[in-house]
């Protein structure tokens, strides 16, 4: 879909970015030391820090990715909400207070509190950099996805803009400004998500949502499957259309094409079984009965020109664009609207409803236009039971859990394990424990963080399902990262502007935090501790700013390269790498006295390299990044955690046992 910028959205967005930068410049004048730059001087109030935790954590993955995944597939996106919050339990109950006690600036400080080993500092510093970069990718992809409908700019422009603004923020004031940006953004995100949820419930569920540009797709009448070939368009219930000869690209496919008798426009229709609820309330196909649903097509010509439904794509004269989709076809009891609805009734009504979800036909249909060979992609609606949408296993990521094969189930367990263990291993979360003054403040800020984050995650299912049924979905978007802001747009331009600006600030805040974490690792761990460079406080801050700029440029490049992937899925990788590299060392250092410095170093390096290698050799990477078939991937499933996290623990124990003697001090 082509988006036009909304002036109001641009003004609100500009005001948000200006305020954020103003805040950053204000704090820049107060940041004089390395402690102030990297850890905010340890003086942030625990409540501010707690909400800033939410700001750090509720990244593009949560707001854009989870809502987008729920809007596309239903419950599966909510599994991420559950896993992400569960990770905070590990952070609060196991990691928070000891980490605060042991460290000063970075995660490596904590690991090194007992050993003062350069090898640990080096490996932890590298691991921080790798995890930060992997976490940065989805944030930048989310930024690009946001700016497209907001400002009408292409993806690369959005990514570059976020990169530039974030570098300005981080280079000016470091952790202090990052913290207050996160506080602001965390508060606004939770409050406005709650407002949006209340508006969804107040509007209720309807078969004809009033979103801008939305219309219910046309559908023919039920006919006998065996008679389809002999019926006219009128007999198929395709009013005002004439059938085109079934030849060329559409022969032997579930499609027919028609020409409108009035406008001459061509429409492609897809044959679908007639579905109805049986006596048990289960949605099932009626034997031998079919009907035709209107589809939307995209034809790409050899010169790159795009035709939508046979016309040039655009908003000018003689042009057209995709119309937004996603609606309930049948509500329980044949109603057309529920009116305002409570949260419990929202789910029970959806369970009894049938919803039109749009899919992309994986086949590319060749077509000859003026002697040139073009390809056509078809997007079509599919009637889906609400009961199916509200269960795990609908999305390609998780659909294996509904089958019998073991590998897809292991893939699911692996991701849920990585989400559980990954939070407490994320460098930009860990460094936030150093911005408060003591362990009690670390504990209290984590509780505030869990409260804010948990409340937001409770809302994600309402937001995602509201978008799914609200007529706001872009049928061509495989990842639907824009579902939540577009849902807001259906309530008016002001809410869209606010939500988009908050989402953009979300990306700014999270990227700032990640870049500060990466800069801290480079300057504090790699340059001064490992490289033994003698830097003054002022030089440390300057080196941190230079590193921040370099990481920012890298993030922009990666954000452009990974444009087409769902941001939540990408964050799953970051969690896997973080949990595999960092969690074994953190946990064993706290709970096993036999841990040695060699054990910690080996566990970090093995956990990081094996999880990274697994991700790079997975089927999803083969398909999405290398353009190769997933079957050629050498690893049996996509998510590494279930193998590489235990491997990290095993390596730590074995290496620690082997090196215990060399570490033992002689008794004099």
């Amino acid at each position, binding site marked *: 879909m082509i988006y036009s910028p909304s002036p109001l959205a641009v003004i609100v967005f500009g005001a948000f970015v200006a305020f954020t930068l103003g805040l950053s410049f204000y*704090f820049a004048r107060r940041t004089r030391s390395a402690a102030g730059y990297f850890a905010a001087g340890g003086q942030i109030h625990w409540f501010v820090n707690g909400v800033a935790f939410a700001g750090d954590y509720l990244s593009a993955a949560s707001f854009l990715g989870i809502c987008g995944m729920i809007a596309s597939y239903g419950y599966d996106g909510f599994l991420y909400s559950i896993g992400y919050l569960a990770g905070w*339990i590990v952070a609060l109950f196991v990691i928070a207070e000891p980490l605060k006690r042991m460290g000063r600036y970075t995660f490596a400080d904590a690991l090194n509190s007992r050993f003062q080993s350069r090898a640990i500092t080096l490996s932890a510093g590298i691991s921080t950099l790798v995890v930060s970069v992997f976490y940065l990718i989805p944030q930048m992809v989310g930024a690009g996805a946001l700016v497209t409908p907001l400002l009408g700019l292409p993806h690369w422009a959005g990514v570059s803009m976020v990169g530039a603004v974030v570098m300005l923020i981080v280079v000016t004031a470091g952790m202090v400004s990052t913290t207050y940006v996160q506080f602001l953004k965390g508060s606004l995100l939770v409050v406005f998500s709650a407002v949006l949820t209340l508006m969804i419930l107040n509007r209720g569920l309807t078969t004809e949502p009033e979103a801008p540009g939305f219309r219910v797709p046309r559908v023919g009448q039920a006919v006998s499957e065996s008679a389809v070939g002999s019926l006219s368009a009128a007999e198929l219930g395709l009013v005002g259309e004439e059938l085109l000869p079934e030849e060329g690209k559409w022969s032997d496919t579930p499609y027919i094409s028609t020409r409108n008798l009035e406008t001459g426009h061509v429409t492609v229709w897809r044959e679908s079984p007639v579905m109805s609820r049986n006596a048990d309330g289960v949605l099932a196909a009626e034997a031998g009965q079919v009907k035709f649903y209107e589809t939307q097509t995209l034809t790409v010509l050899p010169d790159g020109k795009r035709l939508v439904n046979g016309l040039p794509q655009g908003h000018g004269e003689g042009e057209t664009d995709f119309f937004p989709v996603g609606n309930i076809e049948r509500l329980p009891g044949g109603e057309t609207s529920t009116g305002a609805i409570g949260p419990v009734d929202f*789910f*029970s009504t959806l369970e009894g409803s049938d919803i039109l979800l749009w899919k992309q036909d994986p086949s590319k249909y060749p077509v000859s236009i003026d002697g040139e060979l073009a390809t056509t992609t078809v997007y079509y609606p599919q009637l889906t039971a609400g009961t199916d949408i509200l269960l795990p296993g609908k999305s390609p990521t998780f659909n294996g*859990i509904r089958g019998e094969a073991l590998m897809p189930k292991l893939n699911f367990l692996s991701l*849920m394990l990585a989400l559980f263990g990954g939070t407490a291993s994320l460098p930009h979360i860990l460094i936030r424990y150093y911005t408060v*003054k003591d362990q009690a403040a670390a504990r209290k800020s984590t509780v505030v963080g869990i409260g804010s984050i948990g409340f937001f995650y409770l809302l994600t299912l309402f937001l995602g399902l509201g978008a799914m049924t609200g007529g706001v979905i872009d049928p061509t978007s495989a990842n639907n990262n824009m579902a939540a802001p577009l849902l807001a747009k259906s309530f008016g331009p002001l809410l869209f502007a606010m939500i988009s600006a908050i989402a953009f600030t979300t990306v700014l805040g999270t990227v700032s935090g990640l870049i500060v974490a990466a800069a801290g690792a480079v300057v504090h761990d790699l340059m001064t501790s490992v490289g033994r460079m003698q830097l003054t406080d002022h030089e440390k801050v300057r080196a941190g700013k230079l590193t921040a700029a370099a990481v920012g440029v890298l993030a922009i490049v990666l954000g452009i390269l990974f444009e087409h992937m769902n941001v939540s899925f990408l964050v799953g990788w970051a969690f896997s790498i973080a949990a595999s590299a960092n969690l074994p060392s953190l946990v064993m250092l706290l709970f096993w006295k036999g841990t040695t410095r060699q054990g910690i170093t080996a566990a970090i390096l093995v956990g990081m390299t094996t999880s990274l290698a697994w991700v790079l050799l997975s089927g999803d990477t083969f398909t999405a990044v290398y353009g190769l078939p997933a079957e050629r991937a050498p690893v049996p499933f996509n998510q590494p955690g279930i193998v590489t996290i235990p491997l990290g623990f095993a390596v730590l124990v074995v290496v620690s046992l082997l090196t215990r003697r060399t570490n033992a001090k002689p008794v004099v």
Partner: protein
Amino acid sequence: MAPLDHGPAAGGADDTPLEQRRNARIGMLLFIIYTACYTAFVLTAAFAPQQMATRPWADINLAIWSGFGLLVLALVLSLVYSWLCRARGVR
């Protein structure tokens, strides 16, 4: 604007060793409770997905109830932890 004036890092009053041990004990107990619930949820979704379709209450399936339940449990346990660890001066 004293609270926003960020000078060099300054340590606060850390917990005493006894308080640290008490907090660690409470944290571990609550961690085990939550982990058990989370594990049960994940294993049910993976190996008995049909159970998730059952509707225990209000015509809403177990998947929704258990998902919301885990989110609320995390909030409740974090508050319990904070309350149990509030007392200072444990000797």
